[in-house]
């Protein structure tokens, strides 16, 4: 299981990476914006995507849409971890096909719960 973490703030990438390691996911990759994230996804071997929304260049929502539009990636589970907390934004992300939505600041327990929930759904 390899997880890609996309966030423009390196601090947040490190936090998510360490939390994932604590949850038993040791194999992670990182990208600092949607575009480089998408290239990493397209080069293969990523099983799960954790992405921020507000990033310079390609945003997380655009990345999500690109993932859903790509036949090789369309079923990739995507968890959005973002400070964007407007009602219509959450609805927009849901319509774009996000699998989970965590707003910053978040707790380790919330991240764990959302990731586990996504896996449960995939296995079901």
């Amino acid at each position, binding site marked *: 299981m390899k997880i890609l973490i996309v966030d423009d703030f390196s601090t*947040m990438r490190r*936090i998510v990476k360490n939390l994932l390691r604590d949850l038993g996911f040791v194999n992670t990759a990182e990208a600092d914006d949607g575009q480089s994230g998408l290239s990493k996804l397209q080069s293969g071997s990523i099983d799960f995507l954790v992405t921020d929304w507000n990033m310079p260049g390609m945003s997380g929502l655009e990345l999500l849409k690109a993932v859903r539009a790509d036949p090789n990636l369309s079923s990739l589970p995507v968890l959005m971890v973002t400070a964007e907390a407007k009602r219509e934004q959450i609805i927009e992300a849901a319509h774009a096909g996000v699998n989970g939505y965590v707003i910053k600041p978040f707790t380790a327990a919330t991240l764990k719960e959302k990731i586990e929930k996504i896996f449960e759904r995939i296995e079901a």
Partner: protein
Amino acid sequence: MQAQRKESLAARLNCAKQFVAALEEGDEQLADEILDNIASVQESRLFQEVGKLTRELHEGISGFTVDERIANLTKREIPDAKERLNYVITMTQQSADTTLGAVEALLPLSDRMSTQTADLGEKWSRFLRKEMDYGEFKTVSNELVQHFTSSSETLAIMQAKLNEVLMAQGFQDLTGQIIKRVIHLVQDVEHSMVEMIRISGGRFSSAKNPAIAKTNLEGPAVPGVSDEDTIINQDGVDDLLSSLGF
């Protein structure tokens, strides 16, 4: 232009001649009339100039006040910026408190563990050197069992505390986003002030402030600043998503 000027000069010369002629003839009334005529030409020029200035000033001022950006800056964004920066202080404070609290809890734990480990290590060396009798060995082996139990408990606490420290660093991302927005605002204010100086400096222009690129993303929710359409906590997000069938 040249012809107009010539004509105007000729008219004034004519007026002057008539004025001199009237004085020579002793016709005081006519002389005064001619003098009034000459003055009124000058006066109407002055009025025209004042009128022109007034119109330009009015256009400048109304052009300035209809610029919504400025109204927004004073009414909403500057008070918001103060709230946002206060929120930055609160977040950095919370992070520092959490981190310091965790470190203060961790230090005595690691201190106790290292004392215990050193003590048992020394006893174990004595046992290996066969310097320990059976009675003491029994006690030491009980101590070892206790040490293993307490160590795994302590390490679990340490793990949790370290995770708290890790999570507390999330402020850097959120405060960074907020500060970037405030920097944008300061640039807007600077731009508006330059515009104001330009207008009051007398060089009028109907040009509006170039629209400053506004991101439609809202950024971190700030208590007291974000409107009611913003969901402040994860439970709200979860409720909304489950209402959408997630």
